[in-house]
């Protein structure tokens, strides 16, 4: 359902009935659902369409956690930092991930293969600490476990290639 606008051009997202500032967040969500991120060009177009200053559009977009401004990696790794995961050692898992992937938290690898983010609770508290990659949930992670998971993922991508 999320991807059904993927092939539309921006003009299909910027429909005349949405030409009101109250639709700004909606529009930004639609663009991100299609492109995976908000590009400068897209946000400038939105500003023009809604007759807002580009600063106002940036101001709203950067306020919310959902929006990202760089293209997503093919394998976005998210480490849950909800309360249960924190208490079960989520921070150690996050640090191990950063070390093994050699990217900073919030960063993307140069080849755009991996990105690493911290997320607030994904609601799998019983499986804490958890890491997700796309739709897959890796339960009860540990720093040594991180290495295993990444070896598995890399083997999979090589098998695909």
């Amino acid at each position, binding site marked *: 359902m999320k991807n059904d606008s993927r092939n539309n051009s921006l003009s299909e997202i910027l429909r005349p009935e949405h030409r009101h500032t109250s639709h700004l*967040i909606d529009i930004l969500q639609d663009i991100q659902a299609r492109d995976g991120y908000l590009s400068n060009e897209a946000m400038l177009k939105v500003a023009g369409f809604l007759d807002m200053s580009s600063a106002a559009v940036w101001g709203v977009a950067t*306020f919310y956690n*959902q929006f990202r401004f760089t293209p997503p990696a093919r394998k976005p790794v998210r480490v849950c930092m909800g*309360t249960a995961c924190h208490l079960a050692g989520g921070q150690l898992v996050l640090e191990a991930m950063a070390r093994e992937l050699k990217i900073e938290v919030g960063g993307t690898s140069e080849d755009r293969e991996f990105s690493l983010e911290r*997320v607030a609770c994904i609601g799998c508290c*019983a499986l804490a600490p958890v890491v997700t990659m796309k739709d897959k949930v890796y339960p009860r992670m540990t720093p040594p476990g991180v290495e295993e998971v990444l070896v598995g993922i890399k083997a999979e991508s090589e098998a695909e290639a």
Partner: protein
Amino acid sequence: MKNRMIRALSQKKVGAPYSDKITHILVGTATCGRAAGSMAVLEAFRHEIGGLEDTVRAWEVGCMGLCSQEPLVVIIKPGDFSVCYHHVTPQMVQQLVEGYVRGDDPCLDLALGTMAGGNGDAVYIPELDLFKYQARVLLRNCGYISPLEIDHYIAGGGYRGLAKALKLEPTQIIKQIEKSGLRGLGGAGYPAAAKWAACAQAGGSTKYVICNADEGDPGAFMDRVLLESDPHAVLEGMIIAGYAVGASKGYIYIREEYPLAIDRIRVALKQARAKGLLGSRILDSDFSFTVEIVRGAGAFVSGEETAMIAAMEGGRSWPEHRPPYPAQSGLRGRPTLVNNVKTLAGVSVILQKGWRSFRDMGTANSRGTALFALAGKLENTGLAEVPMGTSLRTLVYDIGGGIKRGRQFKAVQIGGPSGGCLPDDLLDTQIDFDSLKYAGAIMGSGGVIVMDEDNCMVDTAKYFVDFSRQESCGRCTFCRIGTYHMHSVLEDITRGRGMLKSIEALGELAEDVRAGSLCGLGRMSPNPVLTTLRYFREEYDAHVLEQRCPARVCKELTAYYILPEKCYRGCDHCVLACPVEAVFSDEKGLKVVDQPKCTKCGSCELVCPPEYNAVIRLSPVSLVPADRRTRPDTKEP
């Protein structure tokens, strides 16, 4: 009696959603079940029962709240008992189908217990401590009916509340809500009827109802479970609220992070429209009501009602001064009723079953039930619904099953970033809005996190303040700068750089943030600090005066140490696991952690075989014997 459709619905007999002619397989496929692999289980069942469509059906149901037992499957067999299986894998499916669906062997070795019609050998689930102390009112359908089938909801009495409501005058409905004693279950506990009356009495022909599903506490997921498991209960409450306050348009403001819940609501809206329960002239009455989904873009502050309205108007989610309250002037300046998911689900129960049934539960000032997400160091994690007035001890020990691995209980944190940490001697506090507030916590979001001796209270306070700091919308100075400074003081303390006066300063700062912030989230953000200072002051002192973290969590104050008398020289697990090559062998082949190199990731402790158990944590770090702190200088021969 206004008309035929309302009468037909309100006189319909309440029954079971499942026909008693065939076998039903219920697979829990809410988010937590899916994370544990329930979609593959469902697929396997559908494959395995292929060809038996006339006698067996598999359904997707929501979440029973037993997160630690997922994936869960219930098999309901006509004339036989219903059995609930836990930790089901696709490999077990064939055995279950051969055993109980086709045959007569209930496979009790794979079962958690029986749900109904049990026999002597099997555990009867409703009698487990886990369930015995619960009162499943809001959760009554969760994990039992399919959220994708409106008929399941209607069969169990669903939408009868709406039919009854439409026969009443709006003021009579508000009267019933008032008599029920329902208070806002989103956490603040404001009397629901007062809010409804204010909105109903506000002038203007355009009014709105907003369902607040922006569950932002990083340890709470009750709203998500309700919407994923029983979306119509929330929807029915919303339509009733719309009729009572005179609104014709409703919005469900839900986090974008809850994609499955959004899908479930979409399906529910479509089915309700098809049945004439939404849209124009609902059930042929004069009342019309439509509902739209608004996806939140991820900001904790959006859970505050004025901030939510700002977000819905397309701007930054910034709270406003109240009054005017949204009930008088809310979305686009119109009177707007904002109620939480659980409150609205409570409304359907009250209208379906009568206000007395609700009022009969709970305490004098807090009626009905409280819904909690249990997580942390408990045996049983998941959802629990208890009558108001139940003690925290019952919640932790009877329902939660006590602390995992026999560890010692330390604290229970209730209410997330706005709540507080309560110690052992407050476990007899009863759960209701006022008692919790008195103890320093709040009902709040309903996240309950249980901590044991391995959790550091200063670190916990730092975690919540860090959350509030990052999520502070920045509008008011006290919250924006106050949370920043509280965090930096806590950071100093956890790193062993704190001073006694930093603890005093922290307390003062917390009081100031509480007094000076604009919205409830800011005002309550110091709660984790204030309660840990109040109940766990000795842990703060240990960090500051002795450079010691009693739980051995704070990295700068903790060292990993390998006990030479326990270490087995032939084993190299820790050496191989260390990501920074900080573990080396001494001249006897026993392992030593090179402290300056160690990043304290804990890998060595995790991989040390349990029969040796040689890796321990020491705090303060000065406890590490001087001759085993670092690699002796390796001199060139």
